[in-house]
């Protein structure tokens, strides 16, 4: 093959790999940050314990997978975590409805710390790894490129949850209400919508998806005691970049984050861990309100 074609094919391969890896990472991030953004949009509450819930999903998923396999974990964990979400809603969010948003945020921070410590108490401090299920392990070859099947699976899951989210937000009355309240919190309770029940739904969906993300993360990233902090910081950065409360913005920001993170680890390996923060600072400089039509500025 002539040299120019060879190098062009090579750079195309690099770009394709970059995009695929970004999408895989972004899929996890979308599942997590959209949950965070939804609760913020609806209730003006940031759940600082979201990372701990993700971590719980990962560790419980690990245990279930040891006993009953990956697919069982993927099925059970969201159910268990949805139940946790319901408990969280009734025991924490509802009673504190009259408190300031900062106070509620601090309480979720405290609860997240407690949850994280409980997990470490049971599981210890070393990292775990989870094997991908047989069907999803290995790589497939597409157009002369070899790519891990599991990551393709991640991308599919990410797209799927995006599609479900979009469908819900655009086509159902509850979704419409959530969008309206996210954009303008002064929107009063619309007729026919039970705001409490909707809040319960959003919270339990948010925790369930955090659980799914946790299970999915097992074979892809490692499961370690610091994952709650790492993930909550990632999600917070995404939610701020996307414009807190804007769900569409959060998705775009998650994609951007994934791309920047992956590109950073390829092109700037020495600075890889700092790249998301640089992105955050740049976005704050250019667009202090975030990308989406959210409510970051006072």
């Amino acid at each position, binding site marked *: 093959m002539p040299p120019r074609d060879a190098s062009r094919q090579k750079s195309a391969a690099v770009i394709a790999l970059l995009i695929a890896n970004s999408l895989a990472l972004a899929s996890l991030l979308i599942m997590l940050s959209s949950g965070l953004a939804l609760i*913020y949009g609806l209730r*003006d509450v*940031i759940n*600082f314990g979201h990372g701990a819930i993700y971590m719980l999903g990962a560790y419980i998923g690990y245990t279930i997978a040891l006993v009953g396999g990956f697919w069982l974990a993927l099925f059970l964990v969201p159910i268990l975590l949805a139940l946790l979400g319901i408990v969280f809603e009734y025991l924490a969010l509802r009673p*504190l409805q009259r*408190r300031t*948003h*900062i*106070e509620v*945020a*601090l*309480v979720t*921070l*405290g*609860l*997240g*710390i*407690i*949850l*994280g*410590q*409980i997990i*470490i*108490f049971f599981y210890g401090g070393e990292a775990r790894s989870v094997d991908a299920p047989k069907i999803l392990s290995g790589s497939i070859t597409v157009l002369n490129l070899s790519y891990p099947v599991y990551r393709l699976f991640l991308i599919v899951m990410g797209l799927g949850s995006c599609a479900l989210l979009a469908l819900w937000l655009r086509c159902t009355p509850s979704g419409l209400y959530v969008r309206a309240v996210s954009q303008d919190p002064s929107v009063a309770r619309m007729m026919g919508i039970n705001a409490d029940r909707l809040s319960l739904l959003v919270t339990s969906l948010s925790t369930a998806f955090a659980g799914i993300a946790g299970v999915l993360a097992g074979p892809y990233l490692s499961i370690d005691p610091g994952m709650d*902090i790492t993930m*909550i*910081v990632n999600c*917070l*950065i995404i*939610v*701020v970049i996307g414009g*807190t409360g804007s769900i569409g913005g959060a998705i775009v920001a998650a994609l951007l984050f994934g791309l920047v993170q992956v590109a950073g680890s390829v092109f700037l390996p*020495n*600075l890889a*861990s*700092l790249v998301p*923060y640089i992105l*955050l*600072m740049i976005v*704050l*400089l250019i667009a*202090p309100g975030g990308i989406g039509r959210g*409510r*970051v*500025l*006072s």
Partner: protein
Amino acid sequence: MTGDLQRTATGAPGGQLSRISLVLSGGAIALVAGALVPTYLAGDFVLRLGSEGLLLGMLALSVAFMMNQAGLVALGAASIYGGAGYLFAIGMSDGGLTPAVALCVGFLVIVAYAAVLGALIVRTNPLAFMMLTLAAGEMISHAVLLEGLRDYTGGADGLVVRMNGSILGIDVAEFADPARFWSLAWIVTVLVGLAFWSLGRSRLGAILRAVRENEERMRFSGFNTFVPRLVAYVLVNAVAAIAGFLHVLNAGFVSPESLGLSVSTNALVAALMGGIAGSLGPILGGLIFSFAQDEFGARGLTQLLTGVAIVLFIVVFPRGVVGGVSSALRRFGSRREMS
């Protein structure tokens, strides 16, 4: 209504002056007594715990001031506290600076950093601010652990500071002595506490609280609402830096733990426990936390209790220890008046 008018009548100039002089003389006595008495009464170990408690109290003061006056929760205090230590250590080791110069340079770097970061984030709503300070704190943690900077920062092992030279005539080695360090920490903490107290009663404090309550009306009344908050942010970070410098002078080394999120949450808990209104609360909270942490040994339990404490002191005891005591006293006092 008459009760209101009568109570504010004592706010007349004469009353103000005697109140200020009471506080100042009380402060002076506390300053001297506190610096000296414990060194005769307590052993080295207790003094060390106490000093740690004071430094934590200083951090708690900075968190509390920002929360109480500006309504903003800064979760990145550790990055400044540990960062100050790192800057000092790097300045001494790699920069070959004298201790006094290393302190000054480190201080200026931190003030500049706080000004730039503050300019970016202080305009956001309180929730976003909280998120961003958390992120900024983690950013510094990651920066310190970068492979490329390992030669400067020592990576996960931290840095031992080559302590030689003197600051203002005091030999640097003296700072490691528990008794002497306690005295220094006490004096600095009380002064910082007094400074925050007077700042709170100053015009800046009034403006901050008004902006906190109704930012829009302040703008519509001709105020620049950005600058006061930025100034407050830089000030509280300067205090955190001072605490960090004291820490490194005493400990002689820095590690990534001193920058970690747990230090920031410890400061938050100390502030909440003591009570964020006023200066006495956070200092007390720092001391309580330090001694409690020693009691509860294993780090895991401390962290768990930190989480519990945050929830407890927000939900059940929002005024903290000092706030609770003072409101109990006030209720007792007014009940006596009525009877």
